[in-house]
């Protein structure tokens, strides 16, 4: 599966469109990480636990999108966008969406 955020796959031409595909996940932080982040908040800088958490969430959202595209018979997803929204205190939604296409 080729993933790109361009409007076409460079070097290939699109032969079929399958429409929008999306994957999302809502993740909450666990207490231990929250506690550590609270301590880290005094010093400032990168919060590695959260970075890791967001990366996992994004990976899962992407995987779900890819899965959906695979079911449609696509071999590439173009024009991918990511958005993050904080749903409530301590929980974030990660959304990945794009257009599933077949290209060659």
């Amino acid at each position: 599966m080729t993933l790109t955020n361009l409007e076409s796959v460079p070097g290939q031409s699109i032969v079929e469109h399958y429409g929008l595909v999306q994957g999302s996940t809502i993740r909450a932080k666990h207490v231990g990480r929250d506690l550590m982040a609270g301590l880290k908040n005094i010093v400032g800088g990168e919060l590695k636990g959260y970075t890791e958490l967001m990366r996992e969430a994004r990976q899962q959202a992407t995987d779900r999108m890819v899965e959906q595209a695979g079911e449609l018979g696509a071999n590439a997803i173009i024009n991918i966008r990511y958005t993050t929204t904080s749903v409530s205190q301590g929980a974030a939604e990660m959304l990945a969406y794009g257009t599933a296409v077949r290209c060659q």
Partner: protein
Amino acid sequence: MEPQPGDLPQGLEIFMSILFFSIPFVVLLFAYITGKITEKRHYASIHEREGHWLSIPATTGKQLPDLTTVASADLVVGSVVVSVDHFKRFLSKFRMVFGGEMKSYSSVIDRGRREAILRMKESSPEADLFLNCRLETSSVSKGKGKVVGCAEVLAYATAVRFQRTAE
């Protein structure tokens, strides 16, 4: 008054109360020093790595340069969650009274953004060009009241590798 058995001696009591009331200031000082050191180190590392990646640009454009054929194109992502230190948060409370630019906060987000771009580039060391680079910032957790908790910076782009002509 006769000192009761079990009471602290007066000198020690004063010392203890001074210690108790100075804790917030000690934390503030600690945050200031460590915050300064980490910022300095981070900027040094950013400058060094940016110099290294200078020849492989990340652009917001979508057009490929002419006369190139693409060998591979793939999505690359880099992200970082940053937070401001206790001292800057303390300063920001004053800033919220007077208004204006929060320099202490913008430097933190600036660091995060540049770090995210660098991580994105580092995840694909063989790329020749990063097309359609997008940046996004979102607040992960909101602190109490108006205070910012921490923010996530995300950078993503399409890493393109050109076809090498046999020489």
